[in-house]
């Protein structure tokens, strides 16, 4: 049971959150301009790194805010938490 620091509510148990997968994947400006391949990439292809991963979480059991987290997918250590719309912090 990870302890995830909601930027608004503070540290809460993982069970209060919903996972949202890779962060920084935005809905295309004009989907109709995309080729099938490009659209397929948006729909189905996400990074799956072994190590630090920028991902989305939603504090569904509390403030319902979506936010971003950089988490190590091996140690599950949370390296950074940052609001949606802000750039991905650089992890040393």
């Amino acid at each position, binding site marked *: 049971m990870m*302890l995830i620091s909601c930027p608004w509510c503070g540290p809460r148990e993982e069970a209060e959150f919903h996972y949202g997968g890779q962060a920084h994947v935005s*809905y295309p400006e*004009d989907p*109709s301009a995309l080729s*099938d391949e490009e659209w397929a990439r948006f729909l189905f292809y996400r990074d799956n790194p072994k190590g630090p991963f920028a991902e989305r979480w*939603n504090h569904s059991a509390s403030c319902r805010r979506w936010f971003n987290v950089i988490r190590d997918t091996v140690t599950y250590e949370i390296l950074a938490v940052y609001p949606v719309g802000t750039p991905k912090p650089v992890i040393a």
Partner: protein
Amino acid sequence: MSTQEFRTAQGGRIDRSRPIRFRFDGSDYTGYVGDTLASALLANGVIQTSTSIKFDRPRGIFAAGAEEPNALVQVEAPFPEPMLTATTVELYDGLVACGLGGQGRLSPEPDPARYDSVHVHCDVLVVGAGPAGLAAAAVAAETGARVIVVDERPEPGGSLLGTRETSVLEWATSVADRLRSNPEVKLLTRTTAFGYYDDNFVLAVERRTNHLGAAAPAHRSRERIWRIRARRVILATGAHERPLAFNGNDIPGVMLAGAARTYVNRYGVLPGRRAVVLTTNDSAYEAVFDLLDAGVEIAAVADLRTGGSPVWGPRCAERGVEVLAGYGVADVTGADRVSAVTLAGPDGSRDVAADLLLVSGGWNPVGALYSHAGGRLRFDTDLGSFVPDGCRQAVAVAGAAKGTFGLAGCLAEGAAAGREAVEAAGFTAPADTRLPAADEQPASPTAQVWVLPGDESRQYVDLQRDVTVAEIRRATGAGMRSVEHVKRYTTAGTAHDQGKTSGVLTSGVVAHLLGVDVGELGTTTFRPPYTPVSFAALAGRDRGMLYDPVRVTALHPWHEAAGALFENVGQWKRPWYYPRDGEDMHAAVLRECRAAREGVAMMDASTLGKIDVQGPDAAVLLDRLYTNMMSTLKVGSIRYGVMCRADGMVFDDGTVIRLAEDRFLVTTTTGGAAAVLEWMEDFLQTEWPDLRVHCTSVTEQWATVALVGPRSREVLATLAPTLAVDNASFPFMTWRDTEVAGIPTRVCRISFSGELAYELNVSWWDALALWQAVYDAGQPFGITTYGTETMHVLRAEKGFPIIGQDTDGTVTPQDLGMDWIVSKKKADFVGKRSFARADNHRPDRKQLVGLLPDDGTTLLPEGVHLVAAETVATGALPEPPVPMLGHVTSSYHSAALGRPFALALIRGGRGRIGERVYAPLGDALVPVTITSSVLYDPEGARRDG
């Protein structure tokens, strides 16, 4: 009733004034409060508790704690519990148990006990209340920090309990008392920390009533899971003594030296009368002297170190104990119990008569929790064991768990760890720490030995799995090079004790046989739980009706009183149908349908999800999420809408009510409410933060009563005198705020049945009053309540799909024949792009159609598949695989059609209307004709009444 002939005259921490009667393997015995089953058996001269799983060899009590590999027992009374270690089962009156060689037995009777779990937070968690743990806790507790101490034993003291360190024990007792009286401290005994998870989340199980036997109070949970979130953790989990592999090392009477010491000192029990001791280190000598003083004859000490023990050698001489330096055990004689030991060394070999053989092959720090936490272990060649070597979590290790075996060292290390932890947690540690004086023996180095010379087929490595050195040699001979492979090849370390005593020995033997360094080889992985935890404890309170929340509407009590049968829809309980006396479901549903089509009927529709969407850009948001246009909806009007996921597949549907220019009320499916709201928030927060919109769930603010049928207008009119109900004033797909039966109500003219119908929305609090009023007012019209089954039939007759029943995540709006709801005007909406993918243009996509069984009587089972006429041209099914056209998604008897009908997803279905296909039912092929999905009132003449 046997007497306790192996009980010492005095001493031990048992209460000799409180005898206990118990039964083991059919014989009655007595013991004392404070005994374990194992100590009480030993007191009665019983050392063999079972026979081994594979070779059926006698096996005896080998250890004195949780690491016991042999003495597995089945508790029979007061309630059956499989596979416990006799060394950890506290004795209580009426205990009935038997030895266990192989499999435990579960009770067919339901377990009457309660179980629970509790969340707890602390600044410092100390695992283990031995000298190191107590020293740490004492320091931490003084600072006002919130401290939790857990220990698996019934009383604090840890390894001290098995010693004669009376002064330190007194200190331990006083520390424990101070901890107990400190409101910010929890001292939990009988509590095993069994798992160490991310972010210092430690799970512990407390055994709260077991030791009370039949006297356990019913209101108290039998076992409790403590979910501990600690800022800092100190592991003072001690060490387990390690056995050695030698001939006959599995015969009852062979026992860990430290265990024998514990039996004598803690329980006042002599594990034997005449003992031989085999050791690689100094610790066994402590046992020698404790046993001597208790009256056990020490026949000889075989010290595998050629130089023996400089410290202890002379002392033994003083007491006339013979020490054979450089000697080992060549063999052990005895069938059910050790009778003699053959010692071999530089000056040859000799047989020594004995009924007890004490063994110490060194000590293994207990590294399980540390490993769970992600900590690394390294092999310390001086200690000859694996020790902690770094962990990313906020944890420290102290005492024997760190490889510090001297008492003074443990105390100092514990205190230092406690100080460090509270300081790190932001408290100020006391200037000085008073620790008891402990005279520490200068220990001479341990000899690193795993296997003694002999017959490998009689040298046991894992007693519980009957794994010998010979079997391990067979594994390495077969090509196995990793410990994990050897473990799986031999099953060593996979038994109930998960290799607590055998694990490191196995690695040592493998290293020995392969001629590699044991440090390089490593051990197998430690996994939670540290000791076995009962299923029931983990399930806790989430059992029976509390397994998952039951969600009910405000009208639920009324439905129950009306004798409704209920359907689980997600977590909701919804009325399924309302059988009258003697009615089966078929009859009840036909009656309910008829009422809705011919008279008037009512249903509780409160479970539909409802979301209040307001803000200047509300319409823009809805335009982007729904496939159809919502911005053109007029205030006062209602529109049906469908949402797709980005992949173009239908995700949810419902109605959209425009309350004001900048305010909508969106309804979702019963199951989709939470997902749709989270989805809206997702887009608003992450994609379109510029949109000025707020979404709020009002699912339980509003209760909804569907009033359906040609006579519903009359019923409404009687209840809402001020409301103009004629079709012109109150047209289809519009809403009005009014009072119904004096209750503020939002009346929507929506129909999910094709009939004239209204949805009456009131405050959840007013639901019952409204429902009762409608029910009463409807009596003259024969108003009938109906449930989900009838609702499904009515909508199916009209070809309205149920998302999740007629769709399965692979269906587009076009597949449902809803091209009309897919806006051509909008530049984009979620899912639009996917419609252009190649697969969405296949002519043979599955499309929703109607089906009519040709015989007019057969009800097709939902889920049955359809095959084309040419496929069964021979009149029978061909050999599989049989090409399938699609399957039946919904199927009902229709009162209105006077026959059964179905909806189905069929390849190129709309192009096949009129075609005859076949449904294989058992051995029969039922001919059915494909029709439009709208079978009732296709021209929609009835919705205005």
